[in-house]
């Protein structure tokens, strides 16, 4: 009786196990639930005069993977010129590409761009704001001064402390938060 009961139990267990026996193919494009990727960043600088725009471009299609990202800057900036800057974020891993800038715009209060250049004459000011009147930075004005070569680092922070000292003026030092995007470009002003 004892062995019979045990055998029944064993059979029941094996039955239960065999239901879960296939590890199953994962869905490669389960995008609703995977962390939203930003693959592509473009910062388009359109001068107030008729000269051609300067485009700063960064693309990393494999996210955290080991492939080197693609990065480019078209041409150089002119001295003593004001440019209208438009930042754009895409997720090109999706087809069609997903416009992440829209999402950032919708959550403007939780986001802010920061622009830091090694060239002291390059100055970026915010040209947009969130609902509270605090800067966002999808739209900016970039002013150049004397000639020089250096870098510009563009950072998008998620949940920064916008009210902390200097943050509204574009200083990242006290902003805290976490980094959604941070890219550095070499720029030439001539």
């Amino acid at each position, binding site marked *: 009786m004892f062995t019979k009961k045990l055998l029944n139990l064993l059979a029941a*267990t094996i039955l239960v196990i065999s239901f879960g*026996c296939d590890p199953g193919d*994962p869905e490669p494009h389960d995008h609703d639930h*995977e962390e939203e990727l930003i693959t592509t960043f473009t910062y388009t600088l359109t001068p107030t005069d008729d000269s051609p725009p300067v485009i700063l471009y960064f693309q990393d299609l494999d996210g*955290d993977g080991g492939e080197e990202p693609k990065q480019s800057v078209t041409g150089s900036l002119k001295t003593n010129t004001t440019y209208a800057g438009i930042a754009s974020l895409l997720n090109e*891993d999706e087809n069609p590409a997903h416009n992440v800038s829209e999402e950032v715009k919708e*959550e403007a209060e939780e986001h802010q761009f920061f622009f830091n250049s090694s060239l002291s004459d390059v100055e970026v000011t915010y040209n947009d704001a969130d609902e509270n009147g605090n800067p966002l930075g999808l739209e900016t004005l970039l002013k150049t001064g004397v000639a020089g070569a250096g870098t510009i680092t563009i950072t998008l922070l998620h949940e920064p402390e916008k009210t902390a000292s200097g943050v509204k003026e574009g200083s990242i030092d*006290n902003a805290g938060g976490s980094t959604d995007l*941070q890219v550095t470009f070499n720029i030439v002003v001539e």
Partner: protein
Amino acid sequence: MLNKFVFIILCFFNLCVALAQNCDLKLAGIVKDAGNGETLEFVNIYIKENSRGVSTDGSGIFKISNLCAGHLHLVVSHIGCTTQFVHVDLASDTALVLYMDHSKHKINDIIVKGERTVEKTLQSFETINIKTITDNNDLNLGSLLTKISGVSALKSGGGNAKPIIHGLFANRITILNNEVPQAGQQWGFDHSPEIDPLSANNIQVIKGTAALAYPGSKLGGVVLLKPSKIPNEPHLHGEGKYFYESNGLGNGLHLKMEQHHSKIAWRLSGTLKKRFDQKTPNYFLTNTGAQEANLALQLEKNITEKWFVNFYGSTYNTDIAILLPSHANNFVDLQNSIDREVPYITEFTTTINPPRQQVNHHLIKLNSKYFFTNKNQLAITLTGQLNRRKEFDIRRGGDSHIPIINLKQFAWLIEGKYKHQFSDDFTVKTGAQLNIIDNKSVRAALIIPNYLAYESGLFALLNKGFNNTKLELGLRYDNVLQNVVGLTIARPKQVFKEQNNFNNFSGSFGWKQQILENFNASFNIGYATRNPAINELYIFGRVPGISGIIEGTNNLVSEQSVKTTLGLKSNFAQLLNLEVLLYYQHFDNYIYYEPRGFRLTIDGGSFFYKHLQTDAQIYGLDFSAQLKISESLKANFTYSYLKGDDLSRNLPLIYMPPNNIAATIQYEFFQPIKIFSQQLENVTLSIDDNYTFEQTNYPKEIDFTPPPAAYNLVNFKAAADLQMNKTRWHFTLKVDNLFNTSYRNYLNLQRFFADELGRNVVLGVGFKF
């Protein structure tokens, strides 16, 4: 194990002569030290039914007369001993012999020596008893285990702690909850074992390479948690414990009920815990709250005299908030956090927000033991475990409620064990297991691929004793088959399928020699191979708490290890105990991970970690001394030293626990203290001092910050018992980090971001009826 007391009571029933006068019965007894058999004076015996109490005299004898026939519940308490509860069904004059664990107690109530343990082994082991478990009911399992020398914890803030035994953790440690190998995502450095320590009566750590009778890694130590057998007594009994902790304004409640009913013996226990943000000496740790809800059911039945069946079911459910300032996405965030004295946000919050972990672990176990004779027995066990782990991060687009990691694991174990005792000192145990693990990511990114693993194993253990010598020999073979389905790292992501087949061999030899009456030595050598785990082969992504991208390595091979331990124990006139454990472990193809530079990504880039292999060695010693200055005053001293070397590169091993010295002094009042009409018993005061050295042995070019400075922590504890009618109350007051010292811990993943906890005052009240 048959309850000793009940056994003795039954013996005496047969011998006693019935003098069936209704209320004219006598109960007498003698109380002895379980360690050396000497009689114990001043043991208090209290009868719940009539609130009468007596003490033992100089020869350890107590006598109570004019008792009525019927059930009696005795509370037996003594200085330095765990209070015992004894049930007597009094029908005639009765004599009892009671044993109390006495001389074998370490000062901090962790029993080190003694044969009355969960697992009989010649391996070096230490045990945490029920008193220590319940007096520290504010701690999780990993933190509780650090009370044992040679055991430390890999922490991730205040909420998560993984045990490290002699420098090894995660995949190399086997945790046995009620003899079931704990399944789940044990590989994760910020994944705590999903076990409520309050469900156990006894927690044992085996430091050598033991547990050949169980599936899992044989390279590192073993943690065994075991609930006690339900005491053989017919009445409903229960206990409750409540605590309040000042740091985090936490509350916890644990309740337990049990009865050895004539139809079935049962025990039901549950735990609820909740706390808010914790605090360092100087600031709050934003988002470090936690909550927990657990339930366990234990059933036991003797179907026939030879057939014993038991069931165990438990559910463990927790939500743990992860320190908000530790949410560092990229290299610059991490650098900023390291440079900051105080995190950028130090607000006190009462909710659990992302980043957070939500973990559920459910276990069922059915065990059937059949005794053919009292020399041989067969045990068959079926267990099932379901583990759910969800990790939530701060996400854009209002998606923070969708987990970034969402793992579901079923683990099934079928096991048969046969034990044959050929003679009193020769026993053979043998058995086989099939362990099936089905692991899936549920609609979330694959941090590790989906897999279905079959682990089948066979083992045999031989125990042989001669006069003063005991020998132990064990062999085990395991076959591990992993069916893996994952996604490629390169985008667009493609499905890949792989099948891995590994063979693991392990063996151990133990020898214990009683050299002098008060001096013994034990030597153990163990060999084991361990196949690379799924995470070591395939993990890819950013793991919260590590602040970087971590990648598995596809071509890892099995690691092999030899560990030797030599334990020496001596005792001087029951006043001084000395114990030293020396160990040396050598590895071929030791698997580890370390920072391998910087990877540029669109969010500024991260440190990049890779799993690697090397030849390595870990060696060290655990030393402990217990001094009994008087019956009331005891002192305890422990020292742990450990060094790990990467032999191929001639560098120190990364993430090894720093050395540690601890000293405790305890005073227990010999006689009860009278407060009004009540008597406070077992009044104990203790203070301990823990000094942790700075880890100077680390690979300097590889780790990105040096380990934190040395620190000293002082803790205080007071405890007392109070018997009121049928209920025994237990009060505790603990102050951890008494001097509110600021420090950081090398083995805390959050050491880059914030200090450790400041002072914590914990008040506890327990009752037992």
